[in-house]
């Protein structure tokens, strides 16, 4: 998931859960049925899980641009030298 996708998923999750809660409460109160409220809320949680937890393709519309492998070879990582020997590390 890319950054935009992560932001979208977090917002979607919060909004969907809050809406499920509110709808559940209102419908339960007006029908005087506690069971209805719990069922609606459980359904809302399941729906939110299906929408936000798996890595759907529409969360990857702004993929990160990773460096080309050939570009990376021109700039190798610096050599790590043990601290006991006092050689200086030279970067290319």
């Amino acid at each position, binding site marked *: 998931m890319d950054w935009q996708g992560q932001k979208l998923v977090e917002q979607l999750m919060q909004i969907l859960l809050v809406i499920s*809660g509110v709808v559940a409460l209102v419908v339960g109160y007006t029908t005087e049925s506690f069971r209805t409220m719990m069922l609606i809320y459980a359904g809302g949680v399941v729906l939110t899980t299906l929408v936000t937890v798996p890595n759907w393709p529409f969360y990857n519309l702004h993929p990160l641009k990773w460096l080309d492998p050939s570009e990376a070879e021109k700039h190798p990582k610096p050599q790590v030298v043990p601290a006991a020997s006092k050689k200086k590390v030279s970067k290319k």
Partner: protein
Amino acid sequence: MHSFGYRANALLTFAVTILAFICAIASFSDNFSNQTPSAQIQILNINWFQKQPHGNDEVSLTLNVTADLQSLFTWNTKQVFAFVAAEYETSKNALNQVSLWDAIIPEKEHAKFWIQISNKYRFIDQGHNLRGKDFNLTLHWHVMPKTGKMFADKIVMSGYRLPNAYR
């Protein structure tokens, strides 16, 4: 939100938090219900009235309890626990409360009832103060919710009196 497990955890935590809010609001909504319970208790007969070997008085009564507790039930009510207590004063205790009968009412339909029974629990005094004693019969109830706060209240019925001599 960088992994499946992270998102699942965040969702679960938030969902449970919202569930707690929903339950709190459901419990709070109980404050708005209009409750008009009514009850009447009649003592049909004093079966016997004796002093026990250890010196304590004991009475056996036949009661007729009529009550309409239907308005106590809300959408958030699991059951109503009702009990009848005899209340009186003695020189030793400012208030004596002796539970004579109780019942669990699981549904609104069962909350309007009429029952004639002898006392379920023994009416025994701490001492021998019951001769000629004036006492109240109080119907207490506890409305037990499915979630949240429990409400308790009572109706006091006064004017009952025990006989002056043992029978």
